[in-house]
């Protein structure tokens, strides 16, 4: 068995063992390779948080945006370089907490960008505090007795907010906890990029991803937790296809 490394990925990354980010970035690189998109033809607007470690991994032009603002940063890039594939790479804290407005308004304004949102249910880089997507009952550094609806509000499903937006042309939620989901997620990323290139509207792929470090689990248990708990709250699949409503 030979080990193929996609052209746009560097040999190493600095993510924790068992983290899903490495898999997801590799999927992006494979999709870019397969679509024949070259280094100079893709631009990534990067989040603050663990997602920013894409900087050392994916070999495309990239902009480090202020926390939460990748949706706006990507929009600015795309409007100045409509000839390029422009996508964000963000965590749930970045895209759904502080950047909720920028995420939803990029869709609302029909920005021809793709948002890739990695949802691991915690603020990873700052030490595992609760995020908007933390599940009810989940213990984090800021929900030490577990999240409750009464104290913390219900978890936020970003797709609930993007689905009704007419100019959201392609929405899907994938996961990287097992091989089958990984292959499906790759397909979603490709369809999202194709949606952008076709000019039919905004696209977003949310990807459930394990964070063994901050979930205080070994990698296998973390992956199992997605299957057994997380998917129930955030069901997988294509949520919207077929282009923007006219």
């Amino acid at each position, binding site marked *: 068995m030979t080990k193929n490394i996609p052209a746009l990925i560097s040999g190493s990354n600095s993510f924790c063992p068992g983290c899903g980010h490495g898999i997801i970035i590799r999927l992006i690189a494979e999709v870019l390779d397969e679509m024949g998109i070259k280094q100079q033809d893709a631009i990534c607007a990067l989040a603050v948080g663990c997602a920013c470690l894409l*900087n*050392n991994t994916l070999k495309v*032009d*990239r902009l480090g945006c202020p926390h939460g603002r990748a949706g*706006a*940063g990507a929009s600015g*890039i795309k*409007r100045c370089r409509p000839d390029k594939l422009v996508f964000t790479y963000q965590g749930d804290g970045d895209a759904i907490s502080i950047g909720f*407005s920028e995420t939803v308004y990029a869709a609302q304004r029909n920005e021809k960008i793709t948002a890739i949102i990695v949802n691991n249910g915690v603020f990873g880089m700052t030490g595992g505090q609760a995020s908007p997507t933390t599940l009810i009952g989940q213990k984090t550094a800021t929900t030490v007795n577990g999240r409750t609806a009464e104290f913390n509000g219900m978890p936020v499903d970003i797709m609930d907010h993007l689905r009704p937006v007419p100019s959201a042309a392609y929405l899907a939620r994938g996961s990287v906890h097992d091989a089958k989901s990984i292959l499906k997620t790759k397909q979603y990323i490709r369809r999202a990029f194709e949606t952008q290139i076709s000019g039919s509207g905004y696209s977003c792929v949310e990807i459930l991803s394990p964070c063994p470090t901050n979930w205080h689990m070994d990698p296998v248990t973390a992956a199992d937790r997605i299957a057994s708990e997380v998917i129930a709250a955030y069901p997988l699949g294509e949520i919207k296809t077929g282009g923007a409503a006219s």
Partner: protein
Amino acid sequence: MKQLMKGNNALAEAAVRAGCRLFAGYPITPQSEILEYLSWRLPQAGGEFVQTESELAGINMIIGGAAAGQRVMTSSSGPGFSLKQEGISYLASIELPAVIVDVARFGIGLGDVTVGQGDYFQTTKGGGHGGYFIPVYAPSSIQENADFVVKAFETAEKYRTPVIVLSDASIGQMCGSVELPEQQYPKRDRFDWALGADGDRPPMGRKMTDRMYTDFAYEEYVPHICSRYNEMKENEQLWEEVQAEDAEVLLVSYGISSRICKEAVKIGRSLGLKLGLIRPMTVWPFPVKAFRKYNGKVKGYLAVEMIPIPQMIEDVYLAAHGAAPVYAMPTGREIASSEDIIENVKAILNGTKEVY
């Protein structure tokens, strides 16, 4: 050929003519005409106009456009300008050229929509976090509203820095004669550092990030920052002098207040008073070179600003370098009056005005 234009409109038209490719902003009085004008004019000229959901989205969209190497601008006032500060700090850190317009209004918090000069510290001392400086042009006329926008784009690209145009409510809202600049057509791929632009790339692709965060080049960081800001400080000071050569008292004033100072110089001279004016056209870098010529010669500097508690006076104090006394004339919420200025000058000359 001159024409009559509203200050905000002249500024907006000059941005179009400078080749501004993207404007992203949010309505707030007294800058909204910039937004309104560009909403139809920029698309007509092939650019992109976006009314964003907030000032935050506006400044961050500008970061994206700047990273793509295009001429980009946003504008705001008062609380909206405060919201842009994080993004301005990022622009300074990533070293991206962009123009940010502050049509200053009066007061703290919501304040009021009328003219004021209370944004001096915020614009000149690094309104965002981390200790940056960026060039700040302070127009005092409709003509300069237009000219300084063009200049701001040029300086921004020369140093790869954000640049502020610090206009104000009266210059933005009044009408005046202006000769508009020539239309420029900046090439899209003219910077080899820009994201997506043609040209060779490092193996990892082009990266625009905060200067510290991912490079860990700590040894280079401090000397780099120092040389960068020292170069701007040395090269970019701009000022106007009015009858300064033989003046006993030099007024120091920028923006709208400086125009009343000009009137006061005229009236004062007709009364036999030897007064003149130094008008900073860049408030950062502050034109210390102008003061070096007069330190030790004048009997005092009188800082005239439209604000309750003076701000610019601190730069005047530093520029005077202990070689001339500095006097304050904050005019609160009122436009300065020539009579008051002349009374202050007389008081300086007869020794009855308190040194700041």
